[in-house]
């Protein structure tokens, strides 16, 4: 047997592009701050990590360059942003978690690249899911979402996201396995997904933090949309109307039943209470206006003194220092990740389920963050993947990116088995 050789996309070429992009940004930082040791340090670390990152890639898997290269580019940019907010100081923690996210991406790729194996491991995902839920219920202090380990705080709810995506994806074979109880036929997998969604909803209600509920609902919603596509003759108009009505009814019910603090957010006029509840958003919007198209220059922002300037309103912070144009482009760059499955379609049902789930998580998170901080929708405390500061969310996003990579470059053959066969 001979094997025609696949010419790989030249890695050095893509690495060069990432390096050029980062160098250009560093040039801008140098223009703002002058060539100080701190600037040199930042430049060295970012550029070196690009090198090291691409070398690691050579060892793990040489396919799916888009996801990896975009990830490197975004992580470097995010490190530069976070280091420059309100004055230059290398964001060590952020960088460390960025590295962690990159490694997580590779790790989750290795775990999920074989869709059969990833689906076979579903019981494990369920166990993980309930372990995380139990951790949120019993380990987080005072109904918060954080576990304080002294030197570091972990937000288990962020890690629920990738696990939930793994649970929601499903192959057609699983969908055909039907059970029957008391004469009612059902697909156990679907029932479990509904159960998990319910558990999350109840938990979020209990935590009084409904911020990330839309993310989970979107993942579950798209998972069921894909399932309908698998198993329905076609999506009839009646079914569509029924689904839309269900969603509307649920929305109205949620609106009416929402706790007082949510109601307050839905109805509050931020300009009427500029120093109270509307403080962050007023500052954020004013900062965007002040930034204009091309910003005040790296390090010249004032938004850094406002709470959550590096997480919840990070879009405005970037707008202020780098300008609306850059901020929009950064957001679009993050979108390149889920968009990668448009160029290389997935090759199995489970992977396509993963890819849509990741796209839903990324897009809903970004929508809630950006549009919330700009006062178009209620303001919730969610993060922009890879851009916002926050270790747990960074690592979880890395895992999600790994799923995308798996959908891009699936490995269906157990390599060791083939070798043994030879």
């Amino acid at each position, binding site marked *: 047997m001979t094997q025609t050789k696949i010419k790989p996309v030249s890695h050095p070429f893509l690495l060069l592009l990432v390096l050029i992009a980062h160098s250009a940004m560093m040039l801008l930082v140098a223009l703002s701050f002058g060539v100080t040791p701190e600037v040199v340090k930042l430049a060295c670390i970012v550029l070196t990590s690009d090198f090291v990152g691409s070398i690691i890639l050579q060892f793990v898997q040489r396919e799916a360059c888009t996801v990896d290269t975009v990830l490197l580019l975004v992580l470097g940019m995010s490190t530069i942003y976070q280091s420059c907010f309100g004055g230059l100081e290398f964001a060590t923690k952020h960088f460390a978690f960025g590295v962690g996210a990159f490694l997580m991406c590779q790790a989750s790729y290795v775990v999920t690249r074989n869709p059969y194996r990833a689906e076979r491991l579903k019981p494990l995902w369920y166990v993980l899911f309930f372990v995380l839920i139990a951790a949120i219920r019993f380990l987080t202090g005072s109904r918060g979402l954080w576990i304080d380990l002294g030197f570091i705080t972990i937000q288990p709810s962020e890690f629920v996201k990738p696990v939930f995506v793994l649970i929601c994806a499903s192959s057609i074979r699983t969908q055909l396995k039907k059970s029957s109880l008391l004469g009612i036929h059902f697909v156990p997998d679907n029932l479990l997904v509904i159960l998990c969604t319910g558990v999350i909803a109840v938990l979020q209600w209990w935590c009084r933090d409904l911020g990330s509920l839309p993310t989970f609902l979107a993942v579950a919603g798209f998972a069921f949309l894909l399932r309908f596509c698998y198993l329905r003759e076609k999506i009839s108009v009646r079914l569509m109307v029924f689904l839309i009505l269900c969603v509307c009814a649920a929305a109205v019910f949620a609106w009416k039943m929402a706790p007082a603090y949510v109601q307050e957010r839905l109805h509050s006029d931020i300009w009427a209470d500029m120093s109270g509840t509307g403080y962050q958003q007023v500052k954020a919007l004013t900062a965007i206006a002040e930034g204009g198209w091309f910003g005040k220059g790296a390090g010249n922002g004032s938004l850094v003194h406002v709470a959550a300037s590096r997480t919840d309103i990070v879009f405005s912070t970037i707008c202020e220092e780098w300008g609306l144009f850059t901020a929009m*482009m950064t957001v679009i760059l993050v979108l390149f990740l889920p968009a990668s499955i448009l160029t290389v379609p997935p090759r199995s049902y489970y992977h396509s389920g993963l890819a849509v789930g990741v796209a839903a998580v990324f897009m809903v998170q970004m929508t809630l963050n950006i549009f919330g901080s700009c006062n178009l929708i209620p303001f919730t405390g969610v993060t922009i993947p890879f851009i916002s500061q926050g270790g747990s969310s960074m690592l979880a996003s890395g895992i999600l990116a790994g799923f995308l990579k798996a959908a891009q470059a699936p490995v*269906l*053959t157990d390599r060791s088995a083939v070798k043994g066969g030879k």
Partner: protein
Amino acid sequence: MDLTPLFEQYPFLREAATAFVVIFVDICALVILLAAGRERRRGDRGWAQESRGYMLACEGTLYPLGAAEILIGRHPAADIRFSDTEVSRFHALLCLSGGKWQIEDIGAQNGVLVNGRRIAKPCTLHQNDAIQIGKHRMTVVKGSGKGVIE
């Protein structure tokens, strides 16, 4: 090298520099995206290798096996679809695993015949195997092209 006074004197300089850098970064991103287009061809070839270049020939039509799971049946969501009632809605599933294509009967009323025998459990397919689903006869053929294991 402190350029702050210069910028204060000519504020448009900073904006020009920023615009230049941002556009530059975007061009880099765009080129990476274009590289993804190339990756698609590479992904296709990788797939050809994974799937051993097998295709199904049926009554003059060639069905590509472009995914790890291919549903055969009367259902509109099936990738290989026959509309006559002898074929069940979900009839058979072609599945690629460990470098082998297997066919599996997934509750078909009239069964799946491989080389004339009705299969009860998943059956590995080889080149020139004959599959019968309802009245439709299919043959496993090997396509030729780049990336196929010879």
